[in-house]
């Protein structure tokens, strides 16, 4: 498969009869100016080298996958969500496999804002990719508290506001299901930081369109969706819920149709850029999301299946563009709406 960044050489064979009639045939191999696919995307003023990033909660703080997937290959990474205080998270079991998917109920286990700022943030500037912080809270003040400590000077590229994590009892869930609260949180975060603000939307709502409009009103620079779907599993041997937290978030290929539908709807409703995610494991899934309206795609559970998935997906998207005559990947965003 051709790499997106390599030129595909063309050969021309010239038949040179030549003055002496000898008929020398020669091959004239030259790197023709075949269009490389421009994989750069613009996300609310940020230039990402390609449209593939990784999802919060699946990539730690960017250090666990280095031997499998160099950061230079990624458009960006989204860090594990942080809360003002350290959290131990939910009781085990936190993981359950489901048909073509999985449930997780990790519960925002994280070292807290202070440790994040003191120990993790200093490493961000050296990371050779866009780094997006993800923030969670239980009250509006929490989001503001965190956002104030995260500014452009840290080297971060953006803040993703998690108003949608379904795993924690009070963990932002009501922000994510109530348009007014969502708007307020986004507006407050916008005031507190000079970084672009991405609103991460929950699918566990009646109207994703209303939520999208609300965060736009709040001033969001971009939206990311979908977060996980609320689900559960039962342990038939113990005759109890399988997860320690009873409910968990469903992710993986099983949720892709829901994610696509919601990206479609949001694209019809708002103009701000969309980061599409939910069940992307192969390049075809990513192309579906982009055609539906996402200018960036995010890989989460896909990394567990194949740590090289993001690299393969970048190559697959580029190859798709090449084969279909698109010189810039941004050209395919939203095409399915035509």
């Amino acid at each position, binding site marked *: 498969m051709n790499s997106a960044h390599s030129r595909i050489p063309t050969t021309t064979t010239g038949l040179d009869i030549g003055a002496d009639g000898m008929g020398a045939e020669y091959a004239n191999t030259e790197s023709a100016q075949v269009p490389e696919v421009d994989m750069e995307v613009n996300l609310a003023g940020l230039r990402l080298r390609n449209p593939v990033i990784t999802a919060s909660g*699946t990539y730690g703080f960017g250090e666990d*996958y280095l*031997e499998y997937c160099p950061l230079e290959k990624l458009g960006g990474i989204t860090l594990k969500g942080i809360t003002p205080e350290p959290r131990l998270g939910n009781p*085990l*079991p936190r*993981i359950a496999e489901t048909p073509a998917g999985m449930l997780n109920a*990790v519960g925002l286990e994280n070292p807290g804002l202070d440790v994040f700022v003191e120990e993790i943030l200093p490493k961000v500037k050296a990371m050779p990719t866009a780094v997006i912080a993800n923030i969670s809270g239980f009250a509006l003040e929490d989001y503001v508290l965190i956002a104030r400590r995260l500014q452009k000077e840290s080297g971060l590229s953006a803040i993703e506001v998690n108003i949608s994590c379904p795993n924690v009892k009070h963990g932002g869930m009501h922000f994510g299901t109530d348009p007014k609260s969502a708007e307020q949180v986004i507006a407050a975060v916008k005031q507190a930081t000079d970084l672009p603000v991405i609103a991460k939307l929950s699918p566990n709502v009646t109207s994703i369109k209303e939520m999208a409009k609300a965060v736009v009103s709040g001033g969001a620079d971009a939206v990311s969706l979908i977060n996980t779907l609320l689900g559960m599993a039962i342990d038939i041997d113990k005759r109890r819920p399988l997860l320690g937290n009873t409910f968990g978030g469903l992710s993986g290929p099983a949720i892709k149709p829901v994610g696509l539908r919601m990206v479609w709807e949001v694209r019809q409703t708002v103009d701000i850029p969309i980061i599409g995610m939910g069940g992307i494991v192969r390049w075809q899934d990513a192309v579906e999301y982009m055609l539906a309206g996402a200018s960036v795609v995010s890989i989460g559970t896909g990394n*567990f299946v194949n740590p090289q998935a993001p690299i393969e997906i970048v190559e697959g998207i580029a190859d798709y563009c090449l084969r279909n005559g698109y010189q810039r990947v941004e050209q395919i965003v939203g095409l399915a709406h035509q």
Partner: protein
Amino acid sequence: MQDKGTVLVNEVQGAPEHRIFRLVLKTDIARQAVPGQFVHIKVREGLDPLLRRPLSISDIDREQATITIFYRVQGQGTAWLSQIRNGDTLDLLGPLGRGFTLPQAEQELWLVAGGIGIFPLYAFALAAKRQHSRIRLYWGGENVSFLDSAGLKAWQALGIELVLTTMEGSSGEQGLITAPLVRDLNQYAQPQANLSVAACGPTAMLKAVAEICAKQQVQCEVSLEERMACGIGACLGCSCVLQNADGSLRRARVCKDGPIFDGKEVVWHELSAL
């Protein structure tokens, strides 16, 4: 590393009703693996089952670049795995996790296994033998048929001291393996600095062994097991709870900070199985 391992052997061991398989893979992972580590295996291509299965490494041959894994067919993942044929390849991540602490030469190492917990201890026993440590194995299983199918002969061939128990008394003492362990530890009047214990098996057994060792002030390592998604420390799906010296708690990832832990630190009631 991520490596496509080639299947050299994948066959039933012993009596079929125990559903124990031996899997030998040719993979470069063998060049780095140490006892106590595991590999995260995509048992089937495609989306279902989606997640990899973490399986402990039982034997490591650096020269031949092979690893041996024993597994019991239990759920969907191992069922698919048992269908893999010689010559097939498997997508592997590994070697993963922190392995057992090797004893010093002339130290005494007691291995304590419950049921199929025996499997990861074999590689450790071989390594400890090379260190010229004195090794004793305590192994408890359902019955002698199980012990035979799970590799009793290979352990007998090591020439180390074996203490066996079976639940229904068909071999060795009847009952739990912790009984002879307690008796033998109680024979020492003073804490044995020269002795270390490594245990693998059902969580209730590990807890009992850790508590016995703590009481006798004997160094004890346990191999924990939890459901895993990423297997490499990124998702926090397998986080267990450990207690610090000052009594405060911290989380640790079974896949990355473990699976081998100091038995004294584990907060047992926070694990899945208890």
